[in-house]
């Protein structure tokens, strides 16, 4: 007969969880040195990194997207790489390519010259300017954290995080990201223009120095440990089902589609959205010092998870409702399930 062992709370694990919150706080503190405002953006970016996802940033130039990722790399002590996507950027420019060199003996040999993708933190700037071929080169990297060149696969070091940017202004000469690639991003964050006060702080700060001053407070293994810890955060069935219902509710063709979807959505979010909701909600809960996922965690992440995964129809356009408005209506409609 199997004896029942009583599991007791290990204080070391308690310390780990406390360290998680402390780590996050430290990182935020460091980032605040270089990035003014953007509190929600920073929170969600940190959630995405810990959760193992990628982020798509949309914002006008000069709002600090590159600075954020660079400061993040410094705070997390992770190698950072910036790729400026242009229409003539080739896939090999991203992943790297084999080059033929002479060795010391003068013999010709092929050496793989790693591309900028071989870093932990990648800023893919203006990703929608690259050609679809180059964009698809990012797919494998973002999804599998691997690069395959000439049948040789190179595994990228973890944690691997891609933050891509889209410039909403320059529509000419851009190649809209396909849905499959959009779905690879855990979040899509809208970087707004700073407030007057924030802009004043930015100006004052950058008068002193333009360089990032954040220092390393945690490292890559710590991020990975935080990731593992976040996975163990419990989620009750009601919350899980609520997240699933949110995603299925975005599909107008389904039987249990929401009224909002039937009215305003052309096609809904993929199953990755449900995965992203729960994974990110666990991280968010832990970052806020909670040891369980709540409805609030899911609701807070609904916008960044869903806005790039659903497409509104002409009724929404006609009624002047953007995708965030549709998500807001969906959350209101499903409020009764979040009790």
């Amino acid at each position, binding site marked *: 007969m199997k004896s029942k062992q009583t599991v007791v*709370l290990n204080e070391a694990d*308690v310390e780990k*969880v406390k360290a998680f919150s402390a780590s996050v706080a430290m990182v935020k503190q460091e980032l605040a040195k270089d990035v003014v405002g953007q509190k929600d953006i920073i929170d969600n970016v940190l959630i995405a990194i810990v959760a193992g996802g990628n982020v798509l940033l949309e914002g006008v130039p000069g709002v600090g997207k590159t600075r954020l990722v660079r400061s993040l790399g410094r705070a997390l002590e992770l190698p950072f790489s910036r790729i400026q996507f242009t229409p003539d950027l080739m896939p090999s420019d991203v992943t790297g390519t084999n080059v033929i060199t002479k060795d010391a003996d003068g013999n010709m040999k092929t050496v793989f010259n790693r591309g900028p993708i071989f870093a932990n933190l990648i800023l893919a700037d203006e990703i929608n300017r690259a050609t679809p071929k180059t964009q698809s080169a990012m797919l494998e990297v973002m999804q599998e954290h691997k690069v395959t060149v000439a049948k040789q696969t190179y595994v990228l070091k973890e944690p691997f995080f891609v933050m891509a940017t889209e410039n909403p202004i320059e529509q000419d000469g851009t190649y809209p990201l396909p849905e499959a690639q959009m779905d690879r991003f855990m979040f899509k964050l809208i970087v707004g223009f700073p407030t007057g006060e924030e802009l004043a702080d930015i100006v004052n700060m950058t008068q002193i120095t333009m360089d990032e001053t954040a220092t390393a407070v945690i490292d890559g293994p710590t991020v990975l440990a935080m990731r593992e810890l976040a996975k163990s*955060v*419990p989620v009750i069935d009601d*919350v899980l089902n609520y997240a699933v219902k949110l995603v299925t509710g975005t599909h107008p063709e389904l039987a249990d589609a929401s009224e909002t979807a039937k009215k305003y959505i052309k096609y809904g979010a993929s199953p990755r959205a449900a995965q992203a909701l729960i994974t990110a909600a666990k991280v968010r809960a832990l970052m806020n010092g*909670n040891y*369980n996922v709540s*409805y609030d965690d899911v609701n807070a992440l609904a916008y960044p998870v869903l806005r790039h995964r659903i497409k509104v129809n002409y009724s929404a356009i006609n009624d002047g409702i953007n995708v965030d408005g549709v998500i807001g209506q969906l959350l209101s409609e499903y409020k009764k399930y979040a*009790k």
Partner: protein
Amino acid sequence: MTDNFKVFRKKFMIIAALTAAAVGVCLGLLVTGALLLALRLNAIALAWWIYLLVGLGVAALCGTAAYFIIRPSDERIARKLDRDFALGQKVQTMVEFSAEEQPVQMVLMQRRQTDEALGEVAKKRLKMGWLWKFAFIPVLAAAMFLGGILAPVQKRVDPDYEAPVAATDTQLQALRDLIADVESSDLTQTVKPRTLEELNSLLGKLETIKTPTQRKQDAIYAINAIDGAIEATISYTQVCSAVSDDQIVAPLGTAIFSAATYYQSGKNPVTMAEVRSYQEQALNVIPAALYGWTEQFMAQFKDVTIISSISQTVTTFANTLYSQLFDEENNPNVPALGTSPIYDSLQSLISSLMQFAASGGNGQSADVFKSNLRGICNTAADALVPELTVQSYSGMMNDYIRDALVRIFRLSAQDISGDEEQNDPSGDEEQPPADGGGFGEGEIIVGGNDLVLDASDPSDPHSVPYADIIADYNGIISEQIDKGTTKEELILLYNKFYEYLYGGMEQGE
């Protein structure tokens, strides 16, 4: 489960128990009140302890059932705590993962965090505002209970209940007058004592207080008894019935019947005046009817001159008459006649006719033969007259007594016969009861409820239902007619009035 959760669980269980008790009490009051109301309004009164038992039983049963329904599960408690204290599904998570045998460290940490959070809100009050939604239930229950207590107990009204009433003076006097009429009548001693006995017995019953139905039953009993006594003395009906099937002798029966029942020729009920003048009329009418048969019988020989032929016809008649009335050996349908002067007269007629036919005429001419035959028939007729007169008178008196009792006790033909369809000419339609008038279709209604002046006592003229007075008025008028002081045209008018009154109005009149 953590200690703080147990504290809340205990609170919820107490609330559930109190709520269930309240539900039980409310339902108990509701059911008891409804029962009280229903029974009281239907004039049913039960002992107070029965209501108490019912109320307690309902309260206990419903309260217990309500507790098991209302009693929240840990999941429901957790959901309510998270919602009321904004704990972000902490308690729900703790409860859902409480069954894990090997929980991960995060679950244990979550459990401790939840317990700490519950400890912080332990002193806060639970939100019980939702209970006010059901506040109408105790109000309704209290109202129903009070309504049941305050409802007056209805008195039970038995639709078949009849209040005993005393007979009216008119009824008593009318019955006494009837008894006097019978005493002064020419009923034979065979039936008069019995008839007077029944009538006096009826008078005695009438002088007691009874219900109208009981009085009717007494009257019907008396009518049947008198009818039976008088019918026992009437033998002509059996004779007529026995000979009616044979066309040879049927005319004799018809003549006897019409002679004995001549007084029924009109539709009017028999009056005392008719009774008193009966003897005089009977001595004319009855022989005339019988002589009429003689002539009818003799008419068949009008052109017959052969004596043997006449003899043969006479023989056939006599034999047929004998066969129908007296030949018990050969005719199983011969009635049991008993003894009666009518039978004797008919037997004499048969003997005389047989002897006459056997004589063959003795050299007489056909005319003489036929004249002798006529003489024999008339002699038989003369012999029948006395007994027929008596029996006819008895029948007349029977009708008179019956009609009088019907008037006095306001009986209908249905009361007497007991046949429900007798009053309905169509047999299907339900006729409305006659009221305010003296007649109705198919019913013998005497008088109605309309008020008329009772001037019998000039010092105290007052209004009475004319049903109470019409018989008296009828009697007064009849007496005046008997005295011969009424003009002829008034007599005709009076007869016409009472013909309509007692016989029913013709269609279209």
